[in-house]
């Protein structure tokens, strides 16, 4: 299972980088989202995945046993990262909308004006 997810993460990164290299700003933004999700999966995978019960210590249990639960912390981290990603997604789409309103173009090459002057 780890191997499949690892290959999948690699594919997501490849897609993300491919999209980042496109000229269209919309595709650039999609690339950022894809890379963000691939990164979340890295945290999920590196925390260790085991097929087991919920990460919860019941009222009758004396202490947590490692066999019946996975580490809940990476999932909490991902939750935080997803929330941050959501905020950034909202902002970046609004920025793109405003940019399109101002300039009427999707083309990244039109951005070169700020480099020279």
């Amino acid at each position, binding site marked *: 299972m780890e191997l499949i997810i690892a290959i999948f993460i690699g594919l997501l990164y490849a897609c993300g980088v491919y999209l*980042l290299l496109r000229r269209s*700003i919309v595709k*650039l933004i999609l690339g*950022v989202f894809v*890379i*963000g999700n691939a*990164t979340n999966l*890295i*945290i*999920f*995978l*590196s*925390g*260790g995945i085991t097929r087991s019960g919920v990460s919860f210590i019941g009222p009758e249990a004396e202490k947590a046993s490692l066999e019946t639960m996975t*580490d809940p*912390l*990476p999932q909490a*981290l991902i939750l*935080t*990262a997803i929330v*941050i990603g959501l*905020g*950034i997604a909202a*902002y*970046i789409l609004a*920025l*793109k909308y*405003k*940019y399109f309103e*101002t*300039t009427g173009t999707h083309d990244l090459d039109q*951005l070169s*004006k*700020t*480099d020279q*002057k």
Partner: protein
Amino acid sequence: MITALPVFLPLAFMIFALLFRHYHGREYIAVAASGLNVLLSVFLVFKVHQTGMISIQMGDWPAPYGITLIADRFSALMVLVASIVFMAAMAYSVHSLDTRRKSFGFYMFSFGILMGVNGSFLAGDIFNLYVWFEVMLMASFILMSHGGDRNQLEGSIKYLILNLISSFLFVAGIGLLYGKLGTLNMADIAQKLMNFGTLPSELNPAFILIFVGFAIKGALVPFFFWLPASYHTPPPVVTALFAGLLTKVGIYSLIRFYTLFFHQNAEFWQPLVLLVAVLSMVIGVITATSQFEFRKVLSFHIISQVGYVVMGLGFFTVAGLTGAIFFLAHNMISKTNAFLVAGYVHRQKGTLDLKTLGDFYKQHPLWAIFFFISAFSLAGLPPLSGFIGKYLLIKAGIEAEYTAIALVALFVGFFTLFSMVKIWMEVFWKKTPGKEGAPIKEEKSEDPENVRWMTWASGVMALIIVLAGVFATPVVDYCTQAAETLTNPEEYINFVLKGQ
């Protein structure tokens, strides 16, 4: 308690600021709140200087499990300098920023940056550090595009994409590190690494990802491209704030991570860090000399000066780190002030193109003096603070037997002086060129009352630069103590984990 306040004060202000967004006194409330923040930081430095380190466990969870906020001498100094820079920017904005931007949340988002910056300086937990980075970045994205001019939107897209990628690399590194070590607390990670003896090679991917993340945030060569492409687009006060705070947070985190983690594999990291430092110094300064826009010259210089700090870190001696800390603090203040003067020039002349400007010394001698002080402090002329910083760094380099690198640093200093003299000659000294230049805004004789807050902000910063150069001994002593703490990570580890 005092450790958490630099984070909570800006947060409280942000919530409070929603209430008086359209009230005309909002800028004075913001200046007062930033003044309160300065007082708080002075108190923090005073407190830390007495005891060495203070920390707080959020929610009272004990050390490796809960989130630690910790202030040692280095982070307390950074919080203090950041608060001074921030207060100057707030005071400067009173007269320099248009009402439209002020009433659409400029102060709210500026305090968001302050909250993120203070949080990053105080974080003792790597995931917490990531969250503070995001707080800071989110606020800076908004300020960068705030107002919605075409240039700003273009600059924001570049700034946003590259900084987001750096965040992803950093958080991927954190994930991998957690997978290998099972902890996020910085002191706990450092201790586990020490127990390894020689570091296992499977930790390297995580460290490289984190290093690249910090290098993008700190604008080190070869990851600096976002900075000069975006820093000249927003209003001057925003650029000044960014130049003073944002890249420095990346460098602060690099120093923290290097001293705690990376240095345990010094034979790999030390040459790499020194190489990046030398490249940043040289490439930053050479690209700066070819620019003909006031703010772009200064932006490229950020890269070069960040290289100096990383060079001091790469020597990894007490003297080198002392120089790095002093130089970082000096650079935050001098750089911000240079950008503040650039903002004033833009206000008076309507352009920042070096070729069309001139005569500024004759018309505004006071501001010319402010620029002289901050620019020649950046170039490293005595008796200004930059001289002390460069002297400490180069001396440390020669003592640590990195003579070639120290000579490169000296050489880069000449080039810095060259481009500062270039700005001085073109903007302040030469006669305004005739009609063949680009059109210049009609000279309006502005009532000095209208720029009173700008003059005060820049003047106080210039005064700090001179004082930090002339009375440098107590500051250098403080920096030496901070550097001793950094070179001795056991102290940090014991303090966090055992509370000693």
